[in-house]
Structure formats: structure tokens, C-alpha cells
């Protein structure tokens, strides 16, 4: 690929700086009851080695924040494994501006929703603002439909430079799976990009592949799903497992989250996606321990 490549030497330097930091568990608010089995605490520190301040508990218990509406309810443990978002928590704490760069393919663009306000980054912004009083949040939407991860990764370098985000919300995988990009190449691109973002103290939230009945039997599709899940586990970033959520809602509830073409999310689909991401983010922001990732899940 032309650009999506590692910056290994710098990486080592900054990782070294990171290792100096203390392992710190984020204290504060109760972890949502559904979060999976507890495991080893995740080392939490800013890249310069300073401890991350304890996030002030919100006025309401986190378990009450960003609740999923009944229409979108799915087992939370399947949707996301809470993973700390230290930068977000930090900026929230000092009431700074939270800049979320939403990047990825067409569900970021909001194709199929009835108006732009209904695409998921905008809905996510709405939900978060409802839950945190005086939240200074800016959502920067830079989706390009049908783009594979290597293209997004290349674009991301410049976009991050230009937009200076606190967090990158990266929707990724569906198009690589369809384009038959080898799963290992895909994983390498994602891992490298995550590392670069983390080196620069930018939180990452990955949003996984779409579900449609058409791809449920596709081997390569599942290989890419697994690669994404592995990448998220290894790099300890939050992955919102969209496939699992959508599959659950489609199979168990029989809800049409996709538009008439069975591809694009309709307004409800975007809302559920936004709710699931918001929920995962909120739980992650106030989490205390990092549960062990469940192997093989996406």
C-alpha cells in the first residue's frame, strides 16, 4: 500500500516513554452490571507517563447513562468489551473540547438515513450530549463509502493532523472483506494505525463489520471479522461489535434495521448503532478494570 505503513522506530521510542508510566486503574463509578468477567487490570497511563486523573463520577450512576432504548436492546456483553478511553476521560474531566473524528465507510456517511442528522456519528453526539451536561463535543464526520482500510489509514494521517481529534471512531472491515483483502494485510493496517493513534494520545473506538443475511455464510467475511477482533484485543482498544448486535436484533427481534435494499441501515439502525456505541463509550470511560477479552468474538 502506498502509505498505510508502520512508523516502527518512533514507535519504539514512544512505547519506552509509555512503559515508564505507572499501571493505574481508573477508579470511579460503578461498572455496568453486564460487563463481562473481571480480569487483569489494564495499565492506564498517558503516553508521557503521567497518571491519568480519576474521572469524576457523574451526577447519575454510569449504569444509568446512555441507556439503550427497548427497540435496540441486545446483550451488552456481546456488543462490546469495555476498554479504557483515557484521553476522553481526561478531557471530560477538565471540561475541554472533545473532538471525535468519525472515519470509515458508508454507515459513517449516513447513506440510507432520511437526513444527515440521522447518520450515526450525529446521533451519537446527540446521545452523549444528553447524558453529560455542558459536554463540549465536536463530531467531525469524514466517511467515504466503499473505502478499504488501507485507503482510510492513508487519509487518516492527514485528517488527524488537520482535525486534532481526542478520539477516532473508525468504522472498518466490511469493504476489506468484500474486496477480499487478505485478512492478515487488513489486520496489519488496522494494528499499525491504532498504534500510531495511541502513540499520539488519541483514543480509538473501532466499529466492526455490518451484518446482513448475505454475508453470514461468507468465510472470508468471518476471517476479516476475526482479524479485527484480534487486532482490538491485542491493542486493547474498544471494539463495538456491530455484526453481533445487528444479528441479534435481526434474528431474535426480527427488526428490520436495514433499509429496503437490506444493506443500508435505516434510521432505526443508525439509532441502535449510535446507542450501542454511546453505551460502550460511557461504560468504558468510567470503567475500573479491563475484563479479559473473549477470544474469537467480534
Amino acid at each position: 500500500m502506498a502509505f498505510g505503513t508502520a512508523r516502527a522506530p518512533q514507535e519504539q521510542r514512544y512505547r519506552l516513554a509509555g512503559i515508564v508510566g505507572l499501571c493505574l486503574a481508573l477508579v470511579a463509578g460503578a461498572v455496568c452490571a453486564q460487563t463481562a468477567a473481571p480480569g487483569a487490570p489494564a495499565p492506564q497511563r498517558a503516553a508521557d507517563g503521567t497518571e491519568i486523573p480519576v474521572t469524576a463520577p457523574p451526577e447519575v450512576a454510569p449504569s444509568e447513562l446512555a441507556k439503550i432504548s427497548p427497540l435496540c436492546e441486545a446483550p451488552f456483553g456481546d456488543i462490546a468489551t469495555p476498554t479504557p478511553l483515557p484521553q476522553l476521560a481526561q478531557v471530560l474531566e477538565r471540561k475541554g473540547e472533545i473532538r471525535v473524528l468519525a472515519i470509515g465507510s458508508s454507515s459513517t456517511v449516513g447513506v440510507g438515513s432520511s437526513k444527515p442528522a440521522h447518520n450515526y456519528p450525529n446521533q451519537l453526539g446527540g446521545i452523549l450530549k444528553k447524558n453529560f451536561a455542558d459536554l463540549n463535543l465536536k463530531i467531525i464526520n469524514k466517511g467515504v463509502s466503499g473505502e478499504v482500510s488501507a485507503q482510510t489509514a492513508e487519509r487518516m494521517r492527514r485528517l488527524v493532523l488537520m482535525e486534532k481529534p481526542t478520539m477516532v471512531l473508525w468504522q472498518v472491515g466490511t469493504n476489506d472483506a468484500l474486496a477480499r483483502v487478505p485478512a492478515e494485510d487488513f489486520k496489519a493496517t488496522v494494528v499499525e494505525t491504532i498504534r500510531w493513534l495511541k502513540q499520539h494520545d488519541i483514543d480509538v473506538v473501532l466499529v466492526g463489520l455490518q451484518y446482513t443475511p448475505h454475508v453470514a455464510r461468507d468465510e472470508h467475511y468471518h476471517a476479516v471479522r476475526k482479524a479485527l477482533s484480534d487486532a482490538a484485543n491485542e491493542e486493547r482498544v474498544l471494539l463495538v461489535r456491530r455484526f453481533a448486535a445487528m444479528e441479534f436484533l435481526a434474528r431474535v427481534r426480527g427488526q428490520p434495521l436495514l433499509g429496503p435494499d437490506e444493506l443500508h441501515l435505516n434510521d432505526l439502525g443508525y439509532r441502535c448503532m449510535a446507542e450501542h456505541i454511546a453505551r460502550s463509550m460511557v461504560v468504558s470511560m468510567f470503567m475500573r478494570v479491563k475484563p479479559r477479552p473473549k477470544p474469537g468474538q467480534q
Partner: protein
Amino acid sequence: MSLRSANAVDFWRGLALASIFINHIPGFFYERFTHRNFGISDSAELFVFLAGFSARALAGRRDTLSMQTMMLRVGARGVQLYAAQILITMVAIAMIAAAAIVWENPLLLEWHNAAAVFQDPVQAHVGLVLLSHQLGFFDILPLYVVLMLGAVSLAAVHRLAPWAILPGSAAVYLAAHAFRLNVPTWPVEGEWLFNPFCWQLIFVIGFVAAGEGALAFARRHSLLLRGLGLIGAAIGLSIVVFRLWPDPLRMPEPALLFVVDKSYLSPLRLFHALSLVVLFAGLFGHISARVPAIAGYFCLLGRNSLYVFCLGSLLSLAGQLARFHFGGTLGIDTVVLVLGLTLLGLTGWLSELRARLKSSATASRE
């Protein structure tokens, strides 16, 4: 259609066209052999440089062509490119739709930024015609259209104040970096992948390089230029091999000038692309002498660049669809490669056959 004899410009242009066809299939096995894997620029730079180089011929010599004729000629070429862009975009949309219907997989409708066309057709169609909505990988031709229409004024300035061309172009390029100017897309929020304010520079450099003065200068200082080219190529290769990519967030301001970015045609990419040009420009003679068949093939593609480019864009899409359906195996990739390159050659051959028949018909009438 002129039937010129094999020359270096056609050869490199043909090579760029074949590379574009290959590079535009994500995950394609043979993609790893194109020159972008050995440096920091790719065939797009080569293609646009050569487009500028050939535009010089279109603009004609000062003494042989009136100003109006020249401007009309360049403008007409721009309109022709625009027509080609609309045509291949429509065919691509139909290919994507047909694949979704035949394979009953609507996920395909999302490819290549086509989703908006199917989901939001009212706005997307306006965007397609205005070139503010472009399909992924179908975004070079819009740049070329803008450059060629811009070349009408470029050609005029070339007549009136040739010394102003390069400084003017460089000023626009720097302004685009300093003020982060680009053309926005609509209805999908975004910006052009090939930022025309930046990419015009390599087009203009090509235009200037085709001038007699510049060519004479290059001949006089060929050793110096090749030395510089070697340095540029070595820098590009080391960045790739030793992974020394400049980190955008660790660069001094204006950081955009120091990163390696395609949209803004970063100075490093530009330098690398021009290095390759000066380094390899003289190689055509050797290739042509040693492997005339290969030289002839790429020249054939380059001579018929618009047709070959258009078919190549569609073949890349066909290749992606084939890989989706049959799997991305080495066997499938080989079939796609061989079939693709054959069809590109056939396109060039047919277009020249037509030109030959036409000229012989004219000759027999006389």
C-alpha cells in the same frame, strides 16, 4: 488519431496506465510489483506529469497556431475528458448494480462511493454531473478535466508571459497547503481525493518540461539531474524499506508540507515522482532495443491513453467484482491480470486500426 512512432512519453504513459489498472484492485496479488511499492509516489503522479507534457503539444508552437485555435483545442480536449468521465461513471454504476442483482448481494451497492447514487439519487445525480460526487478510483479523470480546462488559461499565459507559469503554479500549490484549500464534495461530505490546487503543479511542471528550453537544459545537465534523481529515488525507497514515513503529528508547521500525502501531493511525493522521471527518462531507448515487444505494447497503450484509461478503470472494477465472487486467489488474480492487459492492448489496437482504415479511405478518395 495520430499514428506516431514509438516514443518515451507514450511508453511511460502506457506503463502508468497499466499500473493504474493494477493498483485499483485492492488486495490484488500483482499490485505489489508496481512502482509505488518501491517509493513514495505512484502512477498517478507519472500520469498527470505526462498529461501536462502532452498538453504542451496540444497547445502548439507559438508560430503555427493562433491563440483562439489553441485555446479551443485545449478546451475541446477538456470537454472530451468530461464526457469520458460521465460515460465510465455510468457504466461503473451499472456494473455495480448488475453484480448486486445477479449475485443477490446488495452489499456491493456500497462500493466505490456508489451508495449515494442508489440511496440518495436525487442529490447524487446532480453531484455526478458537477463532478462533486465521484466514485472511488474514478477520481483521476475529474482532476484531468479540471486541469485541461484550466490549461486553456495556462496556454494563454504561456503565450503572453511564459515566465509566470511556474511561479504562479507554485504559489497556488503553496497557498493550498498553507490555507488547506481543496474542493469539497457533495452530497457526501468530504473533499476531492486529488486536490486540484496541489496536483496542478505537477501538470504544469510537465507542461514546462516539454518546452524546448527545458529539454535543452535537461540535455546539458543530464548528469546533474540524474544525480538528483538518484537521490530522490533513494530517499523514496528508504522511506518504504526502512519505514521512515514522516509522522504528521511530529512535523513542524506548516506540517502539511512535510508529510507524505497523496491528496495534497506533498513536496516529498512530488520530488520523488520527478526524480523517477529524470532518472528513467533515458531508459526507453534501451528497453525499446532489448525488448521491443514490451516497449511496443506500452507505447500502444500510451498512444491511445484516453480509451485505454477508460477501459482500464472499468476493468479494475470488473477485477474487483471477479475477486469478490470467485475469491482472491492467485489463479483468479492471474486470469484478471492477463485478461485485463490483453483487453487494454486490444483497445489500443482497435482504435489504431480504425485510424488506419480511415486514413487509407481518405488516401484512396484522393
